[in-house]
């Protein structure tokens, strides 16, 4: 027993699980040593989530065994898992929006103190804990529902760390986080690693796995597809190949920056301001170009798309194709499209069919006399776009909420193809989307732009920006800190400006070398 206890913290073997007649996991095994960070990857639907749910007691395996410290354990409910020190940070943030940050943080941890809870002291301690774990300042008196998605994620991470886990599972932890916060998270994970915590890290961002993990387990179609050790000669391309069973090209590199077709802006923003978030931004997007905007949490990028489209109150003017936009209905009527970052709440109608989701922006096109919708027209429209974007299942009457994240996002995009939108505002369009779907979404964006659409891409995925943007604005504390264009964009440079480590002086110094970097204050 002693020989294995330290080496193999957790071992799952022969895990098989089926729902009805559909087998989602067959004979899957996973090994985790203490102090190890294990990557777990696979396309959406490969069985990662089911495997984790079995480990955390949300599902029970049909067969197979789980050993902790070499001893078999039985996990039938989440409380079992927590008692064994297995903690998980889910992709969907299971938080209580009506609790304060401090309450949420210590809920169920038994660390609230005695019978009386001193609110002020609790909040102080919560703020300190959050600062220690994530490096962020978050006011612990706020309600969880008032936080941004990224901040909620940080709360969840803090909470998991405070519970002193033995095995920590992170499911897409960085999807909503900006680069600087990712670094901070990695620092936290490495500290946990040093004290012997075993960490299972699930992510679609393969670059992150490269940075943080020792070993990667790849699942495909509910089976072990293989193991990759990045340290010993394997590359990320090997991971991708194992995941999809073929090679994937995400970005067609080597393309030249597009030359916009006209000088008339498709989207013109003047003095866009939101109190305490954005300080009067000016920019424009020409037809046939992708303007990207990036920045850290707190830089204002979380609110930018909402402000621009008129979902939240704002100052300043927004013009789409020369016409001033007052609210979001105006924006859409003038050919605007908005893919919001919170897909499950604002992007997709979870309880409607895929066809209903797609046709919602094009109701006038499928309506006959007396305002009656023609089902044949609706199905035809939906089917055409489902095929075009390769939505799976390719069935317009499927309930949208039952689709995987990547396919849901394709449906959201399809909705805007249905409306023939030509000015697209995409807020984190590939967050939580698998590699295959991501490539399809990029291909679709490129096709639209080549056809003359203007795209404003708001993203914290720097790889994505470098791969797809013609120009990139970097926000820092509500202002445009820099505008980079074309080949001048590198992830290192974006990160430096966004995190404020690259001061204005240094930036202007650099601007003397490559001609297309300029400062825009």
């Amino acid at each position: 027993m002693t020989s294995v206890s330290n080496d193999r913290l957790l071992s799952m073997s022969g895990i098989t699980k089926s729902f009805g007649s559909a087998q989602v996991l067959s004979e899957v095994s996973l090994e985790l040593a203490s102090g190890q960070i294990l990557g777990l990857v696979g396309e959406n639907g490969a069985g990662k989530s089911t495997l984790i749910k079995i480990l955390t007691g949300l599902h029970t395996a049909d067969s197979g065994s789980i050993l902790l410290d070499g001893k078999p354990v039985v996990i039938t409910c989440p409380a079992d898992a927590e008692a064994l020190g297995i903690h998980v940070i889910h992709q969907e943030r299971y938080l209580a929006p009506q609790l304060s940050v401090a309450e949420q943080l210590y809920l169920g941890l038994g660390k609230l103190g005695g019978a009386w809870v001193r609110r002020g002291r609790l909040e102080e301690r919560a703020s300190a804990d959050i600062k220690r774990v994530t490096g962020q300042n978050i006011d612990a008196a706020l309600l969880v529902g008032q936080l941004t998605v990224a901040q909620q994620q940080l709360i969840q991470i803090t909470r998991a760390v405070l519970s002193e886990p033995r095995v920590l599972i992170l499911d897409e932890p960085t999807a909503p986080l900006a680069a600087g916060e990712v670094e901070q998270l990695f620092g936290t994970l490495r500290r946990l690693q040093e004290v012997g915590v075993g960490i299972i890290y699930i992510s679609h961002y393969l670059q992150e796995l490269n940075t943080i993990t020792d070993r990667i387990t790849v699942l495909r179609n509910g089976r072990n597809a293989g193991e990759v050790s990045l340290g010993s000669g394997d590359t990320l391309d090997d991971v991708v190949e194992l995941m999809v069973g073929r090679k994937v090209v995400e970005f067609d590199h080597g393309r030249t920056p597009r030359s916009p077709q006209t000088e008339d802006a498709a989207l013109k923003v003047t003095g866009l301001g939101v109190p305490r978030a954005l300080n009067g931004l000016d920019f424009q997007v020409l037809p046939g170009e992708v303007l990207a905007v990036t920045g850290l949490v707190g830089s204002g990028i979380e609110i930018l798309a909402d402000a621009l489209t008129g979902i939240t109150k704002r100052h300043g003017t927004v013009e789409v194709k020369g016409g001033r936009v007052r609210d979001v209905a105006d924006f859409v009527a003038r050919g605007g499209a908005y893919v919001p970052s919170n897909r499950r709440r604002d992007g997709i109608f979870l309880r409607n069919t895929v066809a209903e989701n797609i046709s919602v922006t094009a109701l006038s096109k499928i309506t006959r006399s007396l305002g009656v919708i023609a089902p044949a027209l609706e199905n035809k429209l939906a089917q055409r776009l489902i095929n075009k974007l390769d939505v799976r299942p390719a069935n317009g009457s499927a309930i949208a909420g039952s689709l995987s994240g990547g396919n849901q996002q394709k449906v959201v995009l399809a909705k805007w193809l249905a409306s023939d939108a030509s000015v697209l505002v995409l807020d984190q369009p590939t967050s939580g989307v698998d590699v295959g779907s991501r490539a399809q979404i990029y291909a679709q964006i490129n096709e639209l732009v080549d056809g003359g659409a203007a795209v404003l891409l708001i993203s914290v995925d720097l790889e994505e920006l470098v791969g797809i943007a013609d120009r990139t604005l970097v926000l820092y504390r509500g202002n445009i800190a820099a505008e980079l264009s074309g080949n001048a964009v590198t992830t290192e440079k974006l990160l430096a400006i966004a995190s404020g480590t690259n001061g204005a002086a240094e930036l202007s110094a650099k601007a003397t070398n490559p001609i297309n970097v300029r400062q825009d204050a």
Partner: protein
Amino acid sequence: MTITQQPQKNLPAPRSETRELSPVTVPRRWRSLAPRLIAPVALAAILLGFSLLSPVFLSVGNLVGVLGQMAILALVATGLTVVVRAGGIDLSIGVAVDLAALASAALIADGYRAWVAIVVGLFFGLLVGVVNAALIVGLRIPPFLATLSVWFIGSSVQQLLTGGGAPIYLSKPRVPIEFALLGRGYLLDVDGVIVSAALVALFIGALLGTTRWGRSVTVTGEQPTAARISGLRINRITVSAYLLCSLVGGFAGVILASRTNGFVPGSGQAYLMDAIGAVFIGATLSRFSRVSVPGTLMGVLIFGLLSNGMNLVGLSFFWQGLGRGVVLLAILLLGVLLSRNLPSGTGILTRLFTRPAARSTARTTT
């Protein structure tokens, strides 16, 4: 044995081949069908049970009688279906019924012509909707609380207007024939109110189920912000839903006045609770747990046949509430139990207590 059921997935196949094997659709289709059968099964059980207990229950005369008694409830519940579909609730629909009945009865009593009484009655019903829409869309008060306030206020208003709740009775000779026909006429030997209720239900059902407006109402009710982002003017849509709801309530009120030949304060409010029950029973029929006019009518039928059956077997009035409550609870509970683990968004009930289209914009320092 299970081997034959397993899809062949061990080949590292190109993705197109795995397309049909999306792992959850097959069992989910069956699992999602079960909760939708609860209400029809309940209805069948009621029909079967009471037909065994009472010989007259299944007679044509009795069943048609039930439909006639249910017509006003059906109208009220149909109106309510519209606002619940739009993600709201209208506790004040009974007030719309009462005010419409009060206005039309009072005008007939004062000797006005039938069409004046009807139009003013409908207008009084609509007025309730205008107030609701102003509170909910204009002032962003959660629909449950806004309409609850209007219910209280409306109850008082009708007491005050009738001088402390004195009923209005119309003497038959003074009632114009057109007005009398509305609630007591017959069309080809069918009780006229059944025809009216059926036509209104058909119209609203078609409106919700097949038109662009209905689709807009539906998606607004599901996820208001997502509907807004899709370019729908959700404020207008919500307003239209509340107006239509109270207009239908007003129509029910006018028919009530004609049928009962007068007005008794508070008589419309009696329909509210049954209507809410019927609407939510109806939601179990849909695979999206969505309320619909056909579902609502099934709920109305369940309540109607249940009370009729309980009357026929001689169950005292005091036991009937218990019977209704148990049936409602059983249907909704089974619905919840059987539809667990199915994909769904926020439940209808939780949304009634939240602000419409609320969206946080809170910011913190970094």
